[in-house]
């Protein structure tokens, strides 16, 4: 089933559509969750994954199932949900002021972020993918290397060089 078919199904029959999205993307979402909540008990990770699908469900409903990229939306929700779980942990430990606890990550365009994303795209492949995996999803260099059939050292080299290029590009751009 293509993503468009999934979204159409979700528009017609929300529960059936959600079920199909989970069937297709549970491995993908769990891969992100496992990276982000590395070491966490399995049941907590599955709980987090279900939160992600619920978040996706709500977002899709809000926009009439007009989602540009299912994978991208799931990834953004997953990364944020995992960050929230860690924040909740802090709050439970009484280390974060209540008024700060509910702060959500900004959805508004951010000049710095736009410049950074632009610079990331300019890095080209595979560097762009490596940076996304490393700094957005949080994969370790060794895992990235295994996924991309590279040596860990090569991944590190590319990151090291990419960081220098990014720094340069951002300096020029700002």
């Amino acid at each position, binding site marked *: 089933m293509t993503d468009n078919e999934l979204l159409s199904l979700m528009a017609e029959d*929300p*529960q059936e559509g959600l*079920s199909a999205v*989970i*069937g297709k*993307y*549970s*491995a*993908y*979402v*769990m*891969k992100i969750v496992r990276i*982000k*909540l*590395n*070491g*966490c*008990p399995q049941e*907590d990770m*599955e*709980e987090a*994954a*279900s*939160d992600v699908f*619920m978040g996706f*469900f709500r977002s899709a409903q809000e926009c009439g199932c007009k989602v540009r*990229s299912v*994978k*991208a*939306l799931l*990834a*953004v929700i997953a990364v*944020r949900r995992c*960050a929230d*779980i*860690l*924040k909740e*942990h*802090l709050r439970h430990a009484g280390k974060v002021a209540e008024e700060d606890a509910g702060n959500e*990550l900004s*959805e508004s365009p*951010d000049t710095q972020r*736009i410049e950074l*994303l632009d610079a990331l795209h300019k890095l080209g*492949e595979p560097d*762009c*993918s490596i940076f*996304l*995996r490393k*700094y*957005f999803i*949080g994969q370790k*260099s*060794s895992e990235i290397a295994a*996924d991309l059939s590279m040596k860990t*050292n090569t991944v*590190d*080299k590319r*990151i090291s060089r990419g*960081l220098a290029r990014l720094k340069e590009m951002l300096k020029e751009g700002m």
Partner: protein
Amino acid sequence: MEDKLKKLLVGMTADEAADFETSLDEFADSAEISEEETQRILALTMRKAGNEMENTIQTSTAIKTNKRKWSKRFLIFGIAAAAIVGLAAATGAVDRVQQHFSGGDLSPYSAEVLGTMCEVSNDDITLTVNGVVPDVNGTVISVSVTSHSKKGEEIVGELNYVNGKMSEELMDLGMKYGDTDMTEDEYIQLLKDEGLYEHDLNSLQLRNGERATDQHVFTWREYEEYPNTPEGIQEREAHALYSSLTTANFERDESDTVFFENYFVIDPFVMENQIDLSQPLIVAETVSGLSLEIDLTPYIDTRRLTAENGFEDVTISSYTLMVKAGENDFAKGLYLKDGMLDENDISTATIHYKDGHTEDLQTLMSYSRSVENGDDEEFDRETAFNDPSTIDSQELVAHPNGEQPFDLDSIDYIVIDGIEYRYAE
């Protein structure tokens, strides 16, 4: 920079993330899950969806257990304490208050350094340096220090490094909060709140000229990448030490967080990390405000190599062969093969020993180029990288294949890209 990157990317909108669709496709390719897991997630989600449709507010899921093992940026803080505690607790020896490495004699320089004593005035503590492995161009700097107390147990008690409970708590905090977006300041505040900050974990300091380290404990190394063996701990500590020195080269971000992971910091490709040999390199060990300082400079043996029609700046020390290619070399048409366009096409180095045997080294290459990106980025980059005039500098670094340092006196000559280099007269 890395901290900033993480924060900015986590704030990415779904629309912005959609521009990375291809990368996410690749990421999804290798994702795996069992049918049982999928079914459990499906059941959990459907239950929540059902509840939501009944207008029941689903409260967010609280973490159920307190003990987690996260991989953590702050963890090195805990590890530093744990190493200290572990040793002192294991030996129970009064006179071994603090030892950062369990590896005995590590250094070709130990003979000279061993016996260096420092009697600290107004106290009875004597610190003895057991072994030092300084390698100015490479990745290994290790320090082993034993403290001898003339007052025996009384002094140990005053030093109070030994507190197993404390270290476990500290470790736990590092594990719990290492991957959060907590700033270093917040983490320090947390430690203070928990009564865990008053321990002098910044006891090891490296200074090179004007550059000094202050917080080697706040590094971003992922702890689990080092095995939890004496060797692993030793390596991790050495990296932390080295990063603590080299981060002094970089601007710190607004939260004063060290933003290079250790294995970036020790990356020989980052040339600014090189220690300035014209300035003293000093290791200082401080225990309860008392300090011992040793200038390591005299113990670093770096020898220059020359060859007719060869690169001008070629050196070898106990752990590092290094070639720095610059303007003068390029003017002569001499370039290193930096592997930029073909990772297999890199410069080679072979050591020829006086007894006739040879050692092929694994070379690590780096370069600095000035390349403009054009409209057709791929085409322009390819062209630019094929153009030697874009190269500003190049560097080759190679380390011993095994754990032993290079035996500098046994080397006859070294062949780099077919050219024979011998020690300069």
